[in-house]
């Protein structure tokens, strides 16, 4: 990876982040019916609090100055004040970020691993009954809304069998000791994470399958087979590595999808993360929190795509060298 390539990528990243901040300003502070102005005029606040609000967002200044004030607030990590919790938005989000990371992180790793393995199985038996069943099964799971899948799992493993906890992140009262606590969180994690995996693994199984089917007929694969390597060695050792590039691109875009899924899944399972926070702030019209959460989601997705881009470039170069 050349320094010039990296520099260009970082510049694009910086520009994208800047555009995102401005987009957020436009959405929440400029467009008609934006919450900040509605709130400043409404009777939601005491006169003193309203003065504070006006000062924080510079509402008595022209729009362009408001924009500069907004940028300054963003740079200082000042995302405003929650109406409901009466705390800074950053404080409100702080408790939720970690929980979402646990859920989304676990689900992402399992989703990619399961998706790729299933995709490889389908591709190495291309155009067989197994392949067709995997494709149709993947599409059927992909067609399920995350929240509905979660509700079915709650019936199966909670309501009917009481096999697993279906709500929250810990069982109240049984959290003595680190090990017991971790185990408890793990048990609570199973169903929400499984929901995200079931719905999203299809994305990876289908991409892996389709790319691999194309790769498996290329000359070097045929050569490797002719050399006497086993089919399994050829598929896993040679072909899969070269089929990973589209998977990496998909993984970048997937983060946006799984965050959308997390909102639904956290709502269904009362998982106290960013998704549940978004649901609650929509329900209570707590716009500063909604804005902060959306901003953080957008940043997370942009940065992940940046990393996926770099990774792609890195792997692609290695492939060319060998």
């Amino acid at each position, binding site marked *: 990876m050349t320094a010039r390539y990296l520099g260009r990528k970082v510049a694009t990243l910086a520009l*994208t982040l800047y*555009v*995102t901040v401005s987009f957020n300003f436009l*959405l*929440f502070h400029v*467009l008609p*019916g*934006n*919450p900040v102005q509605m709130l400043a005029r409404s009777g939601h606040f005491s006169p003193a609090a309203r003065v504070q609000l006006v000062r924080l967002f510079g509402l008595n200044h022209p729009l362009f100055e408001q924009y500069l004030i907004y940028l300054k607030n963003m740079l200082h990590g000042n995302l405003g004040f929650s109406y409901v919790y009466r705390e800074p938005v950053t404080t409100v989000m702080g408790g939720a970020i970690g929980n979402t990371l646990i859920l989304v992180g676990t689900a992402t790793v399992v989703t990619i691993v399961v998706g790729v393995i299933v995709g490889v199985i389908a591709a190495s038996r291309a*155009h067989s009954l197994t392949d*067709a069943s995997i*494709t*149709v099964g993947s*599409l*059927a799971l*992909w*067609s*399920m*809304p*995350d*929240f*509905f899948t979660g*509700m*079915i799992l*709650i*019936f199966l493993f*909670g*309501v*009917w069998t009481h096999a697993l906890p279906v709500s929250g992140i810990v069982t109240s009262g049984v959290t003595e000791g680190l090990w017991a606590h971790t185990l408890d969180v793990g048990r609570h994690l199973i169903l929400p994470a499984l929901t995200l995996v079931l719905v999203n693994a299809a994305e990876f199984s*289908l991409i892996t399958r*389709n790319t691999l*089917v*194309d790769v498996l007929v290329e000359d070097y694969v045929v050569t490797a087979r002719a050399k006497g390597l086993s089919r399994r060695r050829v598929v896993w050792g040679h072909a899969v590595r070269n089929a990973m590039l589209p998977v990496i691109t998909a993984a970048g*875009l997937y*983060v*946006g*999808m799984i*965050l*959308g*899924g997390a*909102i*639904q899944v956290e*709502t*269904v399972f009362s998982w106290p993360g960013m998704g549940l926070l*978004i*649901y609650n702030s*929509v*329900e209570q*019209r707590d*716009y500063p929190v*909604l*804005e902060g*959460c*959306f901003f953080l*989601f*957008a940043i997370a*997705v*942009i940065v992940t*795509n940046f990393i996926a881009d770099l990774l792609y470039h890195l792997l692609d170069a290695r492939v060319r060298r060998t």
Partner: protein
Amino acid sequence: MSDESLAQPGDAVAVEAAPARAGVWRRLWRDPMGRAGVYLLAVVLLVVLVGPLVFPFNSQDFGTSAASILQPPSAAHWMGTTELGQDVFREFLAGGRISLYVGLSATLIAMVLGAGLGLVSGYYAGWRDTILMRITDFFLVLPTLPLIIVLAALFGQSVLVTSLVIGLTSWPQTARIIRSQVLSLRERPLVQRVRSLGAGDLRIMRVHILPNVAPLIFANLALVLSGAILAQAALAFLGLGDPVQVSWGTTLHNAFDSGAMSSGAWWYVLTPGVGIVAMVLAFSLIGHSLDRVLNPLQGGRA
């Protein structure tokens, strides 16, 4: 384009393109997955469009006593009752129209935007392409569902706003796909020759480019439609649905909110959920199959 009686440069291609398109539909029908999708879609449309006429739903038709609340399926209520004693089966039949309506109108918006931008971007290339694709990439990366939720929370939850919001956020992938196809089409000798004969940009796009990307637009349309229906369902489930219209997502929202889960009222949850899955699956089977028959590398080899 029957209004053109005079032969114009490149008409031969338009004639060429027509049978190719017919072939796509025939190949869709021959693909088992595509045919399954078409059958499933026929059933879904029958249920959604004819069902409510046969079994009309009256949201005010509550149960008469506490005994009619959250009842399991029976002869009187085929799919049981809601927490208010309403008939779940009738509510299910009434709820599909909004999903279909929002899905179709959002997809229309997304297609016009996506295909339009992709066409312009790919055809003109150069600086226009660079600018348009930068914008496209920005929106492609933004997390779609969170953005839709924010927009719905800010601008209201009527069916019209929901359609607009989903449509305005679902176009980037289409623009990307169409652009790359147009980029390769414009380099074809035929297009180059027609241009040298003096055909205008608009005409080249309409006669030579658009017919050739049309099947691709259709394949993408079915997939965008699936996504739009899922997005509408998620919005409604999160309480951002149109409060005066029944939809499958709204039913699931009510079921979840009223504690149908802990009461074990599976019929209340399963019925509308199966509706969403069937509708989305029908379109994604068709879209996936079209994608396959259009991709010579994968469709031709069987």
